[in-house]
């Protein structure tokens, strides 16, 4: 399945105009904006629109107003000595982050940048038409191999949701979602009926290969599908490259830049054929750390969080999985690939994996909660092991069933489908 093209492309010369606008901004604002611009073709539609809106917001200011807005940051940059730094304006680098973070003015810098973004975004919003916000679904699956602690499973999920007991086989829910049933369309069809046209609207992120096996039974679905298991050859190759980073910040940036330029074509799984945006997303994901290269559950959490941040999809399905116990020696060199370090057989760590997956599933919901449309988001986290789900309905809405009532997977899916169709 190929990615569909976003039809919100800038007009001819638009990117050059954007580039000129960015050049007028204070130095420390430029790397991130320039990086996005240079990767325009592999940005998701939401990112393209957000960048375009931000720059239109900049453009909408009178020169004197814009100058007054950015002057405090320019003054701060002088105090910070940015002009004397080896600071890249082309894109975000490890060295940029390090230089900013160790400046004594860093907290003030963050506040000042925040103010500029708020003012520009407000200006941008004022000039943009108001659009209805569709409902977002975050579906999180803790598979039956993970013995989630019944005492603590849902303890920290907050008051907006509640636990629902599932009657029957809870594994059925994901089948209904991906494949549909005679009485109910699958989620991709539902999204298409409700105006979603881009594959970045539906994400399926899997620690193992379960979701892929469900997808293979149906006709091509407009979805962004990532399986950690399928990415293992690419991950191993990339990890080997990252482990050549010399012990310096400059060296890290050079190695990362080289890895970005490398042709990885033969290492990508077949599922990512013809999907440059998704490939770029995976490369970014692995190069931004957060455990995505080391543990499959961290990959799922960080992947889902980044998908939410970058694509603002209608539906995110994140399925967690099993981690192996650390092997001898790898527990002292945990950053390494323990499959190459040790030829001892893998031994599952179900208890540890359950602890990891439970907190990381909650982190995905917390990531979804950071955005303004969080009130229009619903979340279902299923523990297949406990035949239990934690359901978070729309803000200040009740799902319409009593907490004591056990629901079948079909009933839960009917509720989800009804919410998505809202």
């Amino acid at each position, binding site marked *: 399945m190929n990615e569909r093209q976003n039809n919100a492309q800038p007009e001819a010369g638009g990117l050059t105009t954007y580039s000129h606008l960015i050049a007028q901004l204070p130095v420390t604002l430029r790397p991130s904006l320039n990086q996005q611009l240079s990767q325009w073709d592999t940005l998701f539609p939401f990112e393209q629109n957000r960048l375009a809106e931000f720059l239109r917001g900049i453009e909408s200011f009178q020169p004197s107003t814009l100058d007054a807005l950015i002057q405090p940051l320019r003054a701060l940059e002088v105090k910070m000595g940015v002009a004397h730094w080896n600071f890249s304006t082309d894109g975000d680098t490890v060295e940029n982050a390090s230089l900013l973070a160790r400046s004594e003015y860093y907290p003030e810098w963050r506040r000042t940048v925040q103010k500029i973004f708020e003012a520009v975004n407000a200006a941008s919003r004022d000039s943009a038409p108001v659009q209805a916000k569709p409902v977002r679904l975050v579906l999180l699956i803790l598979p039956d191999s993970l013995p989630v602690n019944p005492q603590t499973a849902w303890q920290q999920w907050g008051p907006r949701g509640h636990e629902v007991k599932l009657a029957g086989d809870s594994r059925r829910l994901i089948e209904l979602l991906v494949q549909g049933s005679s009485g109910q369309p699958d989620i991709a069809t539902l999204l298409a009926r409700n105006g979603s046209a881009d594959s970045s609207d539906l994400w399926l992120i899997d620690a193992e290969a379960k979701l892929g096996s469900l997808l293979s039974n149906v006709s091509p679905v407009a979805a962004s599908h990532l399986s950690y298991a399928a990415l293992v050859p690419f991950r191993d190759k990339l990890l080997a490259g990252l482990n050549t980073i010399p012990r310096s910040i400059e060296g890290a940036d050079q190695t990362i830049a080289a890895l970005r330029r490398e042709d990885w074509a033969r290492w990508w799984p077949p599922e990512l054929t013809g999907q440059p945006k998704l490939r770029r997303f995976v490369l970014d994901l692995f190069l931004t750390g957060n455990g995505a290269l*080391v543990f499959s*559950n961290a990959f799922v959490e960080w992947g889902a969080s980044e998908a939410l941040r970058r694509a603002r999809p209608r539906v995110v399905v994140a399925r967690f999985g099993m*981690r192996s116990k650390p092997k*001898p020696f790898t527990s002292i060199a945990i950053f390494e690939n323990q499959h190459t370090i040790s030829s001892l057989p893998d031994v599952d760590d179900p208890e540890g994996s359950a602890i990891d997956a439970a*907190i*990381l599933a909650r982190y995905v919901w917390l*990531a979804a909660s950071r955005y303004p449309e969080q009130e229009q988001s619903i979340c279902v986290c299923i523990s297949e092991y406990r035949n239990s789900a934690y359901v978070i309905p729309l803000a200040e809405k009740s799902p319409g069933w009593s907490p004591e009532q056990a629901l079948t997977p079909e009933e839960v899916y009917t509720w989800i489908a009804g919410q998505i169709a809202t």
Partner: protein
Amino acid sequence: MDNSRRNLLKAAAILLVDHWATSRRLAFASVSAENPRRKVIVVACGGMRRADTFSESGFQNIPHLYRELLPQSAFYPFVRNAGVTSHYNTISSVLTGNWQRLDDWGKTPPASPTLFEYLRKRMRIAQDQTWFISSNKALTSRIGASSVRDFGPAYGANVVFPKQLLINAVVHAAAQGNAVHSTDRATVQPEIEAMLNSDNYDGLGWSISGDSSSLDVVTLGTIQQAIEDLVRTNAPATGDEFTLLVSEEVMRRFAPSLLVITFSDMEVAHFGSYSLHLAGIRTVDRLVSELWNQVQTLPGYKGNTTVMVLPEFGRDLDGSATNGFFNHRLDNDSTRLTWMMCLGDAVRNVQVIEHPADQTDICPTIAQLFGIKGIDLPGKPLPGLWL
């Protein structure tokens, strides 16, 4: 830790210290009238949130610190890291009493004198009396001495990274295509030998490098045996356990006046495993208890030693854009506000001292404890201690 594994790691620890001593023609501590009677051990424990340690939800992770050591301590529940919350900068700030803003990867030494330098220069104590022993691969040997002209490496600490030695050996063996397997023990052995033989090897981190030294035949033979044994074991060995064993060997052999140990097993949090992060906290909890027991046992330490235990910082808040417990970048109490436990000689009374303190107050406290006078530091000595 099971006995066989502990014995193996212990053997490796002894060998490391032996190697250092042999290269300097020392077997035990130098005898110097200048060596102070009081001793200080600082234990810095990576990033641990208060929520996972000293809080209702965290007590279960620190049974030794909470039940066994807290009732003997002066405890400071509000200690702030107001500097750069990276490992190298935080440890440098604790050691110098000034917030350091250095390259995070340890490319440059601290910009103001460290406690090691004050102690060695002002008190004229011997080279083997100040040690920095660390699990953390984010640090470098430059942390042992500052770039200040009148101080510097001539007055610096001995800096050792025991875990890094093992990591380098294992990783290098893997890079050569040699998988570590119980039946394939010969693959790692030459790598560790090579590490020990290489002069000025940063990973090993002897900051005061004497002449290039190679291992004597006896040591080499013992190392070979120890590494063979270490590779043969199938039980996981953590880097912090090895770091403690090296520290204990240094204590037995040299009884340094100032010993700084940093643990880092809990830093597995960066890779997103909360269960392994908590396991790292529990390991450190146990190791601090073992260290304290060792202090009560060794004649060089019993009755004259102050032990300070502190996290370097917390970790980021759940739900933050910095991915919660994975990182420690947030300008927030979850990351900046931490605690410190003080045990032993300097403790006036068992008490909880709620007076807020900064981590930069630790340096003037230790300086005063050693009677080092005339240093100008922004922090104030901590209350509640005999200084």
